[in-house]
Each structure stands twice: as C-alpha cells, then as structure tokens.
C-alpha cells in the first residue's frame, strides 16, 4: 500500500462509519455578522459553537487597534522572533501577560498549539517524564511526542490515580512535569487544581496548567482556574491561547521560574516560525485589557451558561459533570449525535459535532459554547430547540 492508498483507505473507513456525516465537518461560514450571528449557506444562523466566550470578536477597541497596527507596521513581520520578527508590540504583550499573572517571565508564541508544543518540548526531554491527564488536548500530546520524554497518562481528573502513578515513578518524580487543563474542551469540566498541587508538592514535581478555555472565564480578573482557586503559587507554568476569549490567534506561557526565558533559545516551535502579525498582537493587547476589566462580561457569560446547562439537564440530556461555558450533550451513538446536530442547524443554530475518536471514551457529543453576548432571546430559542429535538429524535 503506497502513501496515497493509505489515505484512501482511511477516508473510506470514515465514510463507511457514518456516510451521512460527510459535509458535517469543516462547514463553511460564508459571512460573519457579529459575535453571535453568521451566514451558513443561505441561512442566518446563531453561533453557539465558537470559543468566543466574552464576545469580543467585534469589540471596537480591538478593531481599532488592529487597523492602526496594519497601517503603521504592515500586514506581517515576515520573520521569527529570533530574527527580524520581534517588534515593540510582542515585547509589550509579554510584559502585559507577566503583569496580568504577576509572574517574572512571559513568552508569546505564534499559536496556542505552539505554546504547548514549545513549552513542553523546551521543559522536558529524553530521560524526563511527562504525566498528563488522559483527556488532554492534542497539542499536549504532540508536545510530549516532540519532547522525547517518557509520557504517562493518569485517569481524567483523578488525583488518587495521579498520586499512584507518581509513586510508581520513585525518584523520577523529581524530573516529572504534570500537565492539566483549567477547563477541558470536550465536556467543560475543571481540573481539581488544589488537590493536584498538593500531590505535586508531595513528589517534588513541576506542574503546567493549560488555561486555554478558562482564560477570561474563571477568576475575578479572568486569569483562569489559578485565580478562581487562589493557587497561583502552586502552578509552575501556565500556558494559554489568544484564539478563544481574546479573539485573535497566538499563545503564551508565563512562569515565576526565570528559566522560562531559556526556551527562547532551545524551543523549535518558538524559534522556527514567523512571529504573530502586528494586527494580531495589537488586537490581543486591546482584548487583554477588556478581559481584565470584564467582570460584567463574565457575569453574563455564567448566567447564560447556567441557563443552558440547567435547561438541557431538565429536558433530560446527559451532560458533562458541571455547568460552564462549554455545555456538551452526550449522545448514545454517532447517528443520534449527527441527527441532533443537523436538527439544530435546520433551526439555524450552529454548534459542534464531535464523534469518536475525537471525544473521550469514544463518546459522541454535540457541544455548545456559550458567549457573553448571547441575548436572552437567542438563549431561549436554543433552549426551546433542544427541547423540541429531544422528543423528535427520540433521545430518551
């Protein structure tokens, strides 16, 4: 079998598993009207499947900053941070992230994916150990692979399981990096951070927390799970992305360990890629200011999240373990998930369809992401549609 035949075989297997799903993935959005509405095909749809948690994608401050940056600095840097691509804005954004988390060190990466790749591969290498939550994002798995370290998984959010696996490592626990996430992207549940830190300290390991989905969402100023739990001191490295609450693209790592700066000289995902464009950096800086002062946005986001979670639970949907901006309905099988996803789209609601093997434990999910800008009318329409489809599809 040659290389192309292998891809044909994989495609045939995918289509055989769920032929009706062809076209369900990578659905094109033709026009975007606002942070909550867009056009798909000929229809105006509600966006309930984005990561735009604070609804800042059209914030005037961000648009203005991006426009000015293009006018003043051009469309791209055309080079890496190591070479010609380190501008005033990149350094300022790093300073602002360090200030936001009250940390000594901060590095900006070109994407959130690269933030995890570059941080993990920079921190650990052959002979070291990475101990990751079983439900970790692909960027964490890929960072581990790139590092060459020994990769061990612990059961999702199970601190006793983490403790057991650290015990087995013996003295190697001192060269172990534990990785968890503030909010997990599939079911929207939060890591038991206080207990994880307690176990980490017991075995003298280091902890990296990925706040990709919790930045802007948790804590009084939106730092994430570290702020909500008051555990900043116990976390060694925090990574995150600009592509969710901050509505651009890029990523960061902050730490109080001065050694983080060394990653600039050894981490390939940082070194061998072009730096973020001036417009990206400018809009991210503007969005970070709004996020830090976004208490009211967070209040509205959580009000919306609680409303959808409680309504769907009341209808009878099986959901993730706790309310949050990600509300995932867990369906019995891929066909049922596809029927619900199609039914929602026919009612002009766009959400995410997630089929095995993308979701944990081969689950089939229909995942909604809530936005602070969703209006009460939009929330009501979504709740009513979920109720109607539950009966029509026969989900119970």
């Amino acid at each position, binding site marked *: 079998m040659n290389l192309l035949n292998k891809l044909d075989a994989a495609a045939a297997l995918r289509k055989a598993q769920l032929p009706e799903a062809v076209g369900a993935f990578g659905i094109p959005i033709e026009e975007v009207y606002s942070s909550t509405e867009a056009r798909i095909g000929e229809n105006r749809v509600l966006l309930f499947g984005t990561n735009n948690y604070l609804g800042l994608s059209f914030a005037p401050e961000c648009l203005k900053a991006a426009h000015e940056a293009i006018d003043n600095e051009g469309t791209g840097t055309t080079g890496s941070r190591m070479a010609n691509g380190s501008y005033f804005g990149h350094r300022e954004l790093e300073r602002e992230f360090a200030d936001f988390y009250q940390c000594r060190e901060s590095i900006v990466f070109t994407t959130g994916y690269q933030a995890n790749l570059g941080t993990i591969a920079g921190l650990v290498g052959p002979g070291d150990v990475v101990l990751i939550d079983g439900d970790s994002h692909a960027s964490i798995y890929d960072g*581990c*692979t790139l590092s060459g*370290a*020994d*990769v*061990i*998984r612990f059961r999702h959010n199970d601190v006793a399981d983490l403790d057991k696996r650290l015990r*087995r490592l013996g003295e190697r626990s001192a060269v172990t990096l534990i990785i968890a996430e503030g909010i997990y992207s599939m079911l929207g549940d939060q890591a038991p951070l206080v207990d994880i830190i307690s176990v980490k300290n017991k075995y003298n390991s280091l902890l990296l927390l990925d706040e990709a989905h919790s930045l802007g969402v948790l804590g009084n100023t939106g730092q994430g799970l570290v702020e909500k739990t008051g555990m900043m001191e116990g976390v060694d490295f925090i990574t995150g992305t600009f592509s969710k609450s901050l509505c651009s693209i890029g990523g960061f790592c902050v730490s109080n360990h001065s050694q983080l700066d060394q990653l600039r000289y050894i981490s390939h995902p940082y070194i061998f890629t072009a730096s973020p464009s001036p417009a990206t950096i400018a809009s991210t800086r503007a969005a970070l200011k709004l996020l830090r002062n976004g208490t009211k946005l967070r209040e509205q986001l959580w009000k919306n999240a609680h409303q959808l979670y409680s309504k769907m639970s009341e209808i009878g949907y099986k959901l993730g373990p706790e309310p949050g901006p990600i509300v995932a309905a867990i369906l019995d099988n891929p066909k049922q998930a596809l029927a619900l996803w199609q039914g929602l789209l026919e009612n002009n609601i766009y959400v995410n369809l997630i089929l095995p*093997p993308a979701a944990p434990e*081969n689950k089939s999910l229909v995942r909604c992401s809530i936005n602070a800008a969703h209006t009460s009318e939009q929330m009501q329409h979504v709740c009513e549609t979920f109720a109607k489809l539950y009966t029509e599809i026969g989900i119970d």
Partner: protein
Amino acid sequence: MAESDYNETLQQLCQRLDSFTGSDIKVSPDMSLVNQLAIDSIKLLNLIMEIEDTFDISVPINALVDVQTVRDLADLIHKIKTES
C-alpha cells in the same frame, strides 16, 4: 526463574486482554493487537493504564511504537518489570 516470570506475565496479559476485548476470541501471544483484537490507538491507551495497574509499573506510551502483537506487549512489560 526469569523464563517462568516471563511466562507468567504473558499468561496474565492474555487473561487481561480476554476481559478487555470482551469478545469470544481466545487471545494468544502472536495475535495482532490492532488487526485481530481490534484494539485501536485510543483503546490501547486505556489498556495501558489498566496494565500499569495490573503489574504496578509505569509504561510510557512512547514505548509502544514497536508493539504490534500480544507477545511484543508482554516483552515490554517484562522488560520494565525486570528493570524496575
């Protein structure tokens, strides 16, 4: 002694796989994990956690690249057990 340990590991692994796959197929050492036991990459990751608990060892998932058959997996487990 080492050989009897290995045989015991192989037997224990086959029994564990019998219950893990939940099928009527009787697991034998030269069976392919993917082609004959239908253990895909996701199932394999979960299986490894169970094996770690069964044998009280750490099995790095990056060590699985050369594991194709039940015997390959038994070899890896035995190697880790004897080195620990």
